[in-house]
């Protein structure tokens, strides 16, 4: 007789899982006081909170001055001087944007917020139209509203060879420079014809090439037409923009352009085509190798020296391009990390089904790779958002710049003005960054729902 043999006689019934024991006290015993190390940590944390929290609360709320309209109200207080922020609020949001025109940034803010909410909230329908509006139409609308539109366009292509401008003597219609548009139409027809003949000569589909070229040119024409058109808005130079407006313009442009650029660069770095790969590597390594401050300095003070005479690029635009390319390089490396984590079998399976390179990337590899690196991507966004403040050194006044400018106003000089300003800046930056961070956690949970590997 041995006791190895065992045969079950009856089947064990299904039982419900045990209930969590002990309520709040049980939870505390388990999570806060389960051992000497845990007890020490709990005590230290409590001490830290007791040390930090009361002074903060006192500064922000209890000792703070809430009402008043001059520095006298804040002189005796040891807390924040909120009337200072209230008095300067317009400047902090719009910079030196003309007061009578501030409804224009307001419209842009509102439009951007509505479109963005539509994109970010999963339940809202029409995602495709929404993204076309946000990524395609909104930038142009924002540009016209903020800057005033009615750009003066001079030459397209033919106009550089034939002096059309002189011939038409700068005639205008609804703000449209006629010489430019004559130039544009003639040049477009020529380009389309060239595309047709070149494609035919190379043995490709000439009609298709011509149609593609025409479509592109018509799209470009529509954008230029809107920009050139005179909507009767007072022009506001970018030098007058400032405050939160500049912070948002720079960071949103940077965020929106750096992700797609970064994805392309990451793919380029893994490409089998040597030229594409070498270009991507050089680009990424260059931008990662130089500090953002250098990039901004170079773009602002050195670039004009290299550009051909007379050609100037708007200062804000230069900073925008610098920030976008800079963050694209970082984004590329984050995305590449994600790409490397996707097993080769995924690409092989997609290829074996007949999916081409871009389809494979779009439908199979990228969705998985990006989902893996959401924390890295959002980390980059947050870093970028805070780095925008560096535009200060090229004489653009973002939120922080405006706050510091406001310090120099003698009519608000009090002992706590400085702290109040920085506290306010901290709160505003925190709200944006914390928002991004929370949203990324939400997306992570959504993308991983039900997908055990």
């Amino acid at each position, binding site marked *: 007789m041995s006791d190895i043999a065992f045969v079950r006689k009856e089947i064990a019934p299904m039982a419900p899982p045990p209930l969590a024991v002990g309520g709040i006290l049980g939870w505390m015993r388990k999570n806060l006081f389960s051992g000497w190390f845990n007890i020490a940590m709990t005590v230290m944390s409590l001490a830290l909170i007791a040390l930090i929290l009361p002074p903060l609360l006192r500064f922000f709320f209890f000792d703070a001055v809430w009402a008043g309209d001059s520095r006298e109200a804040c002189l005796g207080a040891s807390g924040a001087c909120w009337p200072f922020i209230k008095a300067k609020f317009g400047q902090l949001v719009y910079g030196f944007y003309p007061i009578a025109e501030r409804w224009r940034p307001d419209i842009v803010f509102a439009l951007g917020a509505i479109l963005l909410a539509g994109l970010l909230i999963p339940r809202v329908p029409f995602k495709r139209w929404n993204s076309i509006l946000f990524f395609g139409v909104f930038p142009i609308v924002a540009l016209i509203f903020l800057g005033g539109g009615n750009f003066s366009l001079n030459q397209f292509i033919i106009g550089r060879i034939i002096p059309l401008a002189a011939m038409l003597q700068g005639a205008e219609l609804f703000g449209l420079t006629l010489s430019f548009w004559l130039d544009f139409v003639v040049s477009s027809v020529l380009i389309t014809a060239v595309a047709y003949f070149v494609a035919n000569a190379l043995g490709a589909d000439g009609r298709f090439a011509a149609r593609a070229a025409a479509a592109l040119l018509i799209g470009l024409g529509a954008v230029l037409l809107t920009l050139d058109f005179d909507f009767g808005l007072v022009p506001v130079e970018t030098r007058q923009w400032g405050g939160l407006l500049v912070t948002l313009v720079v960071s949103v442009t940077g965020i929106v352009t750096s992700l797609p650029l970064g994805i392309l660069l990451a793919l380029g770095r893994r490409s089998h085509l040597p030229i594409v790969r070498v270009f991507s590597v050089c680009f990424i390594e260059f931008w990662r190798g130089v500090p953002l401050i250098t990039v901004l300095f170079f773009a602002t003070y050195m670039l004009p020296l290299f550009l051909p005479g007379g050609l100037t690029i708007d200062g804000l635009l230069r900073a925008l391009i610098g920030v976008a390319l800079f963050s694209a390089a970082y984004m590329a490396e984050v995305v590449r990390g994600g790409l490397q984590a996707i*097993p080769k*079998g*995924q690409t*092989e*399976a*997609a*290829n*074996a*089904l*007949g*999916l*081409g390179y871009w*389809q494979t990337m779009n*439908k*199979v590899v990228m*969705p*998985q790779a990006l*989902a893996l690196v959401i924390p890295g991507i959002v980390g980059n966004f947050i870093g970028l958002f805070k780095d925008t403040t560096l535009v200060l050194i090229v004489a653009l006044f973002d939120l922080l710049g405006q706050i510091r400018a406001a310090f120099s106003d003698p009519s608000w000089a009090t002992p706590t003005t400085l702290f109040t300003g920085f506290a306010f800046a901290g709160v505003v930056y925190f709200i944006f960054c914390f928002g991004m961070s929370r949203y990324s956690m939400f997306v992570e949970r959504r*993308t991983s729902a*039900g*997908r*055990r*590997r």
Partner: protein
Amino acid sequence: MAEAGNVVEMIGVNKWYGQFHVLRDINMKVARGERIVICGPSGSGKSTMIRCINRLEEHQAGRIIVDGTELTNDLKKIDEIRRDVGMVFQHFNLFPHLTILENLTLAPIYVRQIPKKEAEEIAMHYLTRVKIPEQASKYPGQLSGGQQQRVAIARALCMKPKLMLFDEPTSALDPEMVKEVLDTMVQLAKDGMTMLCVTHEMGFARQVANRVVFMDAGQIIEANSPDEFFSHPQHERTKLFLSQILH
């Protein structure tokens, strides 16, 4: 030139990995409706050979003609061939971020440009054939290995391939799941699918194969009908191999 009725023709195919000669002078014809089982020791080049047929690997000498089209560097032709050649992998390679139904409809929608509704009907048809229609809205990670492999077979079938390649489809599965996958493959064979199958399931080979091909060191050593192959192996290496796997 390609003879009518041959789905695959490999003529003097050679391939190297650096200095290493993986495929040496491979000659093989697969007629329409034929079912071929390829076996051989690990590292003998079985996977490499069948992966050359849909250009997951590139051969460097010789010719491979699939359904009348020769494989060259022409990307368009490669895509055309891949559309008509289904492949099932050892590790399933399902797309984990898509539901089972989306896994099945992805290629029909984006490669064959079939309307979504119709693609879903086709997908449900094949899911029913591999006996798991009720799993359509789950994600691959929620299925057992055997179920995942059957989904992978259904995914390939949704493209209505003319030829199916199997690379050790059951060797990553727990023993009790091997049968459900093999049953699916037997059913497929009965329906007249042309199949090239790398496997060590000798029962399966006996049951469905028209021909068993034995490979070693990058070469085809012996090919014969299953009866002859198992009862009268000719080459010494075949005998050794068979004695090792059939105890």
